[in-house]
């Protein structure tokens, strides 16, 4: 063995040569770009306020990252948000006391997550198709319940995103706290380790004694719960609930996970990456909106961003072990 073969890569290289670094660099780039595009951008209060528009999606994206690392995918969370919110709103507008109405909304979310989990795990159907099916089904059910009307929520419930704690809107703070918590779970606990293992090689993991089915089911249920909470938070922000709440949200969540370096086929990804990617998306889209750029340009930039990020992520993954 020559000295070259056993040389250890320098610590800084290991630490920095990761997809999250690329996401961070893109974020910095986006901040510079957005500031250059418009003088109105560089306002911390405004940026934080803009983040609240995506904070609910970002929170669910964190859990979605764990699902994707585990080798599955869930495209139904946005519809889950809508249906949970519609059930909650309908319940409280029919006179059911608030705590129970909230409970109904949360339970609905958990049940929806359970349904997804059952179809994927017990019936062994591919998760991408199942969740495309449930995404349409749940949204449709939300339409049946709410029709085309908006259901109002009581005034005291509105505006949780305006509640400023420690200088930041509450939902942004919640997102940061959730990122920290889930990052610790994924990065330091045995449970987290097992998720990575299942994503890398499910059969090997099962044979190694890891309770694959149970872990996957718990992740789908967690998605369901996170989605319903996100739905209620969105209801508070908007002041009313419609069946089209969060329409297209699943795409945003997947984008956040992908831009954060999560590998679509499982086994790789981090919460930090998704956290940075959420900020990247908000900075990029807010920067373009405040510069009054038309959707034409925004979509193009978004598409290029995704392609560039996936090329870089792939490049990095092919060069490193982890």
């Amino acid at each position, binding site marked *: 063995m020559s000295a070259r073969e056993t040389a250890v890569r320098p610590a800084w290289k290991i630490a920095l040569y990761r997809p999250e670094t690329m996401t961070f660099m893109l974020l910095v780039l986006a901040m510079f770009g957005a500031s250059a595009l418009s003088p*109105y951008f560089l306002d911390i209060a405004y940026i934080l306020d803009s983040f609240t*528009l995506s904070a609910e999606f970002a929170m669910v994206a964190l859990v979605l990252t764990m699902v994707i690392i585990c080798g599955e995918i869930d495209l139904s969370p946005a519809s889950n948000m809508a249906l949970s919110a519609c059930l909650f709103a309908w319940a409280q507008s029919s006179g059911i006391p608030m705590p129970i109405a909230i409970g109904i909304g949360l339970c609905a979310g958990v049940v929806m997550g359970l349904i997804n989990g059952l179809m994927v795990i017990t019936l062994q159907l591919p998760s991408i198709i199942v969740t495309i099916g449930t995404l349409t089904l749940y949204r449709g059910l939300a339409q049946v319940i709410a029709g085309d009307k*908006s259901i109002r929520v009581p005034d005291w419930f509105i505006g949780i995103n305006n509640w400023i704690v420690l200088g930041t809107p509450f939902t942004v703070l919640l997102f940061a706290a959730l990122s920290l918590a889930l990052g610790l779970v994924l990065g330091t606990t045995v449970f987290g380790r097992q998720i990575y293992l299942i994503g890398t090689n499910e059969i090997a993991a099962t044979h190694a004694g890891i309770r694959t089915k149970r872990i996957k089911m718990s992740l789908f249920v967690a998605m369901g719960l996170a989605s319903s909470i996100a739905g209620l938070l969105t209801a508070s922000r*908007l002041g009313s609930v*419609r069946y089209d709440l969060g*329409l297209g949200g699943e795409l945003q969540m997947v984008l956040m996970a992908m831009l954060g370096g999560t590998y679509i086929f499982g086994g790789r990804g981090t919460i930090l990456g998704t956290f940075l990617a959420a900020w990247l998306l908000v900075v990029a889209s807010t920067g373009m*909106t*405040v510069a009054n750029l038309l*959707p034409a340009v925004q979509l193009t930039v978004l598409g290029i961003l995704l392609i560039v990020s996936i090329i870089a992520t792939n490049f990095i993954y092919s060069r490193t072990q982890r």
Partner: protein
Amino acid sequence: MKKSILTSLALGVTFAATMAFAEPIKIVYIGKNTGNPYFDSITGGFQDACAANGCEFEFVAPATAEATSQIPIIEAQIQRGVNVIGIAPNSPDALNQVLDDARAKGILVLTVNGDLTGNESHRDATILPVNFDIVGRDQVEMVGSLIGYEGEIAILSATTEAPDQNKWIVGMNETLKSDPKYAKMTLVATVYGDDQPEKSTTEMEALLANFPNLKGVIAPTTVGIAAGAQVVQSRGIAETVHVTGLGLPSEMRDFVKDGTVTAFQLWSPYNEGWLAVHFALGLLDGSIKNEVGGTFEVPNLGTITINANNSMNTQAELTTFNAANIDDFNF
């Protein structure tokens, strides 16, 4: 002596400088969605009026016409410090919070081409092409005149939550119920094409299949009337089924010329933009008061009255388009 000359010179220069740097009024118009030709006309009115009066104008719109898609845009405009926000709202109530924010910062909020039904307190005034209360009545009259005032009719609308659509449909229903002139006409169905050509077409075809005796269709949406006319044209049933509604002359010209559609109605969207700018500038410099019952003059439009609920109309009656005048319009 020298000192006072210098002082007055300095004052004069400062005054001139302030005048030169006085901020022009910034007006923005937020459409329902992008790629919608209808808003091009309204934008034209805004642009010309601003060019004539020295204000800055920009048009923005979200990619899709969902209820919440305009919220980040409105917030961006607040951040940009605009003076006037004109908006064609995608939802009657989803924008309440953010519009209140805008008004709290002193921004004038005008809804142009549509209103926040039930939530009018969240905007300063509304500019509508005509009094929306008469649209339902006039459209029923239009279809009645085409089918001889008797027979089955249906409504092909846009999205279920569009406040303007619902207002007109209510008007149509009331007219049919209360006016004996239309006693022999029955409304058999109201369907929704979501402003999508595919959906509007399938709904139209379903109408024809479900109601074989259908004689007239009112489609108060440019996408719906075009889709309905397309179906009638490809089936060659223009003699038995009469399609009318609100349509753009540019989209309907072919159908009118080959006889598929006899007549339809609309207004001039351009005038709405024109009026909006003049009204906003007048409010901001104090020459117009935003009071119900007040009147003011607008070049090319004459005297405009502020009606109940702070609403203004650019014209009194709908314009009817038919083979005789279809070529006179270029929008």
